[in-house]
């Protein structure tokens, strides 16, 4: 908690810089408007104008907060203009993809740990795949699945699953291998079967690694869903809000969608963090 003061100072500094930048970046438009109307703007008028434009180049923080408040609490959640509605669509496909990606990732990791051929054949590709901009295939997956008649949240969930898959594989393989030779030897002296070694030693030992990669994976899954929402023609979801905002120059809308996405990401990562702390505490592994 001793970090709270420095963090608040940094956040306050960011807000101040933001206001300054908003004034500076929106000044041109305000001056042009004033010149057209042939009026002189005093400095005070200029500042108030730049902070309350309809379509500013950089919306001021209070405009974004107002828009966020208006489009979450102010609208009914079934409305097309509600961020809760769009956020829910993004969240549901993120979670669906995340669950599938994580599940498959854990299964593949189990296979890799128990089969030397898979380890040698698959593992280098799993590691190499982390250096590839996988997100580039998102539009293709969406369009191809659309032409096959698969629409809705499934195509986006596939992208999310794909993005959260590899971090989980790499993390889990490391985790399942983390028991020391001494521990494995002990299991052998108990004449434990492979299954018993897995459930009683490898699986519990891998938990810290699993949670670390789950955090990476869920953040990646959210990014995947948002990018997956771009090429569908901007209909629903936070990504669609951003794209339609950029089509129509609705900067306040882009910023509020961006903040909604950021809050969603923080909640998702935070939730996994809480589960992690609880689980590791129950297992006596808390640090």
């Amino acid at each position: 908690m001793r970090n709270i003061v420095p963090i608040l100072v940094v956040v306050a500094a960011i807000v101040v810089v933001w206001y300054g930048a908003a004034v500076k970046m929106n000044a041109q438009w305000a001056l042009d408007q004033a010149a057209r109307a042939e009026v002189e703007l005093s400095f005070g008028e200029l500042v108030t104008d730049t902070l309350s434009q309809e379509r500013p180049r950089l919306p001021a923080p209070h405009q974004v907060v107002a828009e966020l408040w208006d489009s979450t609490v102010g609208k009914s959640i079934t409305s097309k203009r509600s961020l809760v509605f769009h956020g829910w669509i993004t969240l549901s496909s993120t979670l669906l993809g995340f669950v599938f990606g994580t599940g498959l990732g854990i299964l593949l990791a189990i296979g890799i740990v128990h089969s030397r051929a898979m380890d040698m054949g698959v593992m280098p590709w799993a590691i190499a795949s982390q250096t590839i901009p996988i997100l580039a295939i998102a539009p293709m997956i969406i369009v191809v699945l659309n032409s096959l008649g698969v629409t809705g949240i499934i195509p986006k969930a596939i992208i999310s699953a794909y993005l959260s898959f590899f971090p989980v594989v790499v993390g889990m393989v490391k985790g399942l291998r983390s028991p020391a030779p001494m521990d494995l030897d002990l299991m052998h002296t108990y004449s434990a079967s492979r299954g018993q070694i897995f459930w009683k030693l490898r699986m519990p030992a891998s938990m810290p690694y699993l949670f670390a990669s789950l955090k990476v994976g869920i953040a990646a899954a959210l990014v995947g869903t948002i990018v997956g929402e771009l090429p569908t023609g901007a209909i629903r979801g936070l990504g669609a809000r951003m794209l339609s905002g950029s089509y129509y120059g609705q900067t306040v809308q882009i910023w509020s969608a961006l903040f909604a996405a950021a809050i969603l990401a923080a909640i998702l990562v935070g939730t996994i963090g809480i589960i992690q702390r609880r689980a590791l505490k129950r297992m006596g592994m808390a640090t």
Partner: protein
Amino acid sequence: MNWGWLIFALAFWAGTYFLNVRIANSRWSRTRVARIGVPVIFGITILVVWQGIVRGLDVPMVILPAPTDIWLRMIESVPTLWEDFVQTFVKGALTGYVIGCGAAVITAILIDRSPFLQRGLLPVGNFIAALPIVGTAPILVMWFGFDWQSKAAVVVVMVFFPMLVNTVEGLAASTAMQRDLMSTYSASYRQTLTKLRLPAAMPFIFNGLKITTTLALIGAIVAEFFGSPIKGMGFRISTEVGRLRLDMVWAEIAVAAIAGSAFYGAVALIEKGVTFWHPSQRG
């Protein structure tokens, strides 16, 4: 339906699987040849099975082109691919990567003397690094125009915070004993920084540099989905998908994959030269 292709793909898969199991469990499994051979065989198997299934089941081109189709398209459109590569990778990703990583390292050194700023900036940086920053792409495209400058700006924002967090962590990596030794030499702050702490931070800095190579490419490509001149990898992918010319899309993805791994490999190679003293490089 073409049974010949399907049976061939199946037989090839069974054969290489058997071969890989044999190699992996033989006593040569720890040799260099086996270490490279097994994944290569696995990769070739995937390509052959892909080809066999596409040809065997007559999968239309608009759903999944065969590897040979993609290869032919790549050969045919080398000039286009090169133009896109220069636009997206060299101008967008690389410029942004250098500016972003450079700014992050300099910021880390600047805040190095202020524990207060570090305690404030690090949690904020960690938080921002986990956010979907690609979302800033539409805003930055609006500010910096459609050309590569806006892509570089997206890349700068994406790589800055992961790099900052890693560098700050690295600057704290030297042990108290080593720092004490420097003060017994009566070394100045600057000398301690350049002779001890920066070299000691290199493994962390390179870790950040390696993580951010992928981010840089992703940022440059995704930013082009929000608007770009009529060249660039992201532009090509999104327009060719619209025209259902999937072989071109796959060719573009192959180029992105090769560029991504080569970029990562180049950074890893530099790391090997710079941090030759680190235990992880000596093994």
